[in-house]
């Protein structure tokens, strides 16, 4: 099935950078009673040729509000409180109307034209009516979603100077439907989900190559769990590793030259480093226990992994240039698995079973050596993966009665469901930043 990094549509994308005030108005959060009060932003419905009830305009409004919520910086105000209608054009806005509803910022989006559609997006600070950002886009209707993502990314940049990478990233995961396994790819927000591969044989544990062009995964196509790489552009799978036993859990090295993976060819699950060009292997662990689930540190020097060498599975760390040195990280709990290194190298997120035998996400801080809890007993929460900027964590949860995909911020107080398909969505993986055009 067709999947392109570039949108299939031959849309022209023109950005007219009219007005931007980088970091001119800092994004202001206040702490009241120990709780962060986010920047209140009003997003009146987008209009299509002045009509706010138009389907495309509605979709864009939804994407816009959701994107702002995703960043964690904004409190998107409920439109029920608005006193000014969405049909008031940007140049006629009465900022007092927005001050009155408690908004600090205001976003106005107007659409016009058919294919390509023109999107005029503006953001203001309400107090002084100053324009923060003004962008114009031309894209095919299907490309407007991505255009909206980049507007919100640029708005956050204008307010904070921070470049959020997740707005230009994708996710891969496995969806199980009856006896069918599907390897899926979707936008970071779960939209545009497409089936890459489907099989009645097991497909499991996808992960991304360092450049985001390929997806590593294990499939039992031959009857044995071999590791493959699916090239998204060429739409072709190649065999990467077919040693006897398990060939799974690839984690790409940051330089893209090699992968860490779990092989059991020597009779016991160990972590190996494989040069992707020569396929030469270096064994990184040597222990009679299970060693698995490698995750490269962003500097490529360390690998977090799971081992049950102490009896129960715990999170450990090994150092590539210092063979034999292994550091145990978790000593709380009795069932810690699925580590993922944060892109800044500061944290490791993992799945842990708590004292009530619930599976939840936890964050290990490598500086303070402390553990904080992200999810709180809402079903089984598993397989956490950092967004490419480390702002968000993607995971699978069965809290709604079946496995769906969720995104949370690091404290865990903002959790959003992003994918609820027909089957069970499991083992998600977040891509690195990819250049998306539309």
């Amino acid at each position, binding site marked *: 099935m067709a999947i392109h990094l570039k949108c299939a549509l031959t849309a022209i994308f023109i950005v007219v950078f009219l007005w931007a005030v980088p970091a001119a108005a*800092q*994004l*202001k*959060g206040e*702490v009241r009673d*120990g*709780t*962060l009060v986010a920047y209140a932003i009003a997003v009146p419905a987008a209009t299509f040729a002045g009509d706010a009830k138009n389907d495309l305009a509605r979709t864009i409004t939804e994407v816009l509000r959701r994107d702002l919520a995703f960043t964690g*910086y904004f409190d998107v105000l409920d439109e029920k409180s608005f006193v000014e209608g969405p049909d008031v054009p940007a140049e006629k806005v009465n900022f007092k109307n927005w001050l009155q509803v408690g908004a600090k910022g205001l976003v106005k989006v107007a659409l016009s034209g058919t294919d390509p559609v023109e999107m005029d997006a503006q953001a203001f600070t309400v107090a002084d009516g100053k324009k923060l950002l003004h962008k114009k886009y031309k894209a095919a209707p299907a490309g407007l979603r991505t255009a909206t993502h980049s507007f919100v990314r640029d708005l956050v940049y204008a307010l*904070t*100077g*921070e470049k959020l990478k997740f707005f230009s990233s994708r996710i891969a995961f496995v969806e199980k439907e009856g006896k069918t396994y599907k390897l899926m790819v979707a936008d970071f927000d779960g939209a545009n989900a497409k089936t890459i591969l489907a099989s009645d044989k*097991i497909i*499991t*544990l996808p992960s991304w190559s360092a450049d985001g062009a390929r997806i590593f995964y294990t499939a039992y196509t031959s*009857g*044995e*769990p071999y590791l493959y790489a699916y090239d998204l552009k060429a739409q072709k799978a190649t065999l990467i590793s077919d040693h006897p*036993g*398990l060939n*799974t*859990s690839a984690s790409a090295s940051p330089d893209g030259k090699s992968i860490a993976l*779990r092989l*059991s060819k020597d*009779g016991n*699950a160990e972590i190996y480093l494989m040069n992707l060009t020569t396929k030469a292997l270096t064994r990184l662990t040597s222990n009679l226990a*299970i060693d*698995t*689930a490698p995750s490269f540190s962003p500097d490529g020097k360390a690998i977090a992994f*799971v081992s*049950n060498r102490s009896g*129960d*599975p715990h999170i450990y760390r090994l150092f590539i240039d210092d063979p034999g040195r292994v550091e145990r990280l978790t000593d*709380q709990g009795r*069932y810690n*698995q*699925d580590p993922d290194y944060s892109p800044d190298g500061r944290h490791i997120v993992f*799945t842990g*079973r*708590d*004292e*009530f035998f619930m*599976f939840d996400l936890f*964050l290990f801080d490598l500086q303070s050596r*402390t*553990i*904080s*809890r*992200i999810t*709180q007993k809402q079903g*089984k929460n*598993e*397989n956490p993966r950092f967004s490419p900027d480390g702002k968000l964590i993607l995971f699978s949860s069965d809290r709604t009665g079946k496995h769906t995909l969720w995104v949370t*911020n*690091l*404290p*865990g*107080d903002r959790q959003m469901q992003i994918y609820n398909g027909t089957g069970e969505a*499991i*083992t998600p993986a977040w891509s690195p930043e990819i250049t998306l055009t539309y």
Partner: protein
Amino acid sequence: MKKTTIVIAIIAFAALFITPSCRMKPPEEERMLAEKAFRDALSGKDCARENYLAAEELLNQAREAVNAKQYDKAKDLFLAAKKKADEIAEYVRTHPEECNPQAQKKGNGDEVKDAEFTEETVSYDPKNPNMRFPVIHFDFNEATIRDEDIPLIKIMAEWMTNFPEAAIRIEGHADERGSVDYNLSLGERRAQAVRDELLKNGIDTKRLRVVSYGEERPLDPRSTEEAWAKNRRAEFTRAN
């Protein structure tokens, strides 16, 4: 500078969620003992039905008490559940004819089906080329073969000796708890443990292949102790 304020606030917020691990702990030992005893009492499900239901109820109450952080109460309930389960096991041991459904096997179709579902009730004939292969079960997070399953592997070894041309795949499985990744290794270790036991019984390693399916192929899709116990297993299939 203001950005720093946000960061501090986020960290402060995160700190609220750090679970204090130094609080009074739930009675994990008692829970494990009770669950193990309950598993061992499974074959008394029908012949000691009243006690079985009572043990199940006590176990559920104990879990609820854990969730309500009433650890003392939970401990007592787990111990009571264990005692009840031990009574069932004792009853099963002393009433083999009543608790062994093989005796009832020749009833209607439904009963036969029931009997097939309980592994222990199947009789194995290693001289039969079409013998139904036994299934080996494991404890949570364990890949050690239980003492009671050693005879099943001996039967399998006997069958393989009788049919020397047969090659066997040993498929290792895990229950749904824990990560997909880790469970693949757990399933593999279970299959390997069974293979090693067959090797001890003189079977040539060339005739044995090990494959792990992790948690992908549960026999019982439910999320209950009983289902999990069924799903933690190693199965034999013909490879030729």
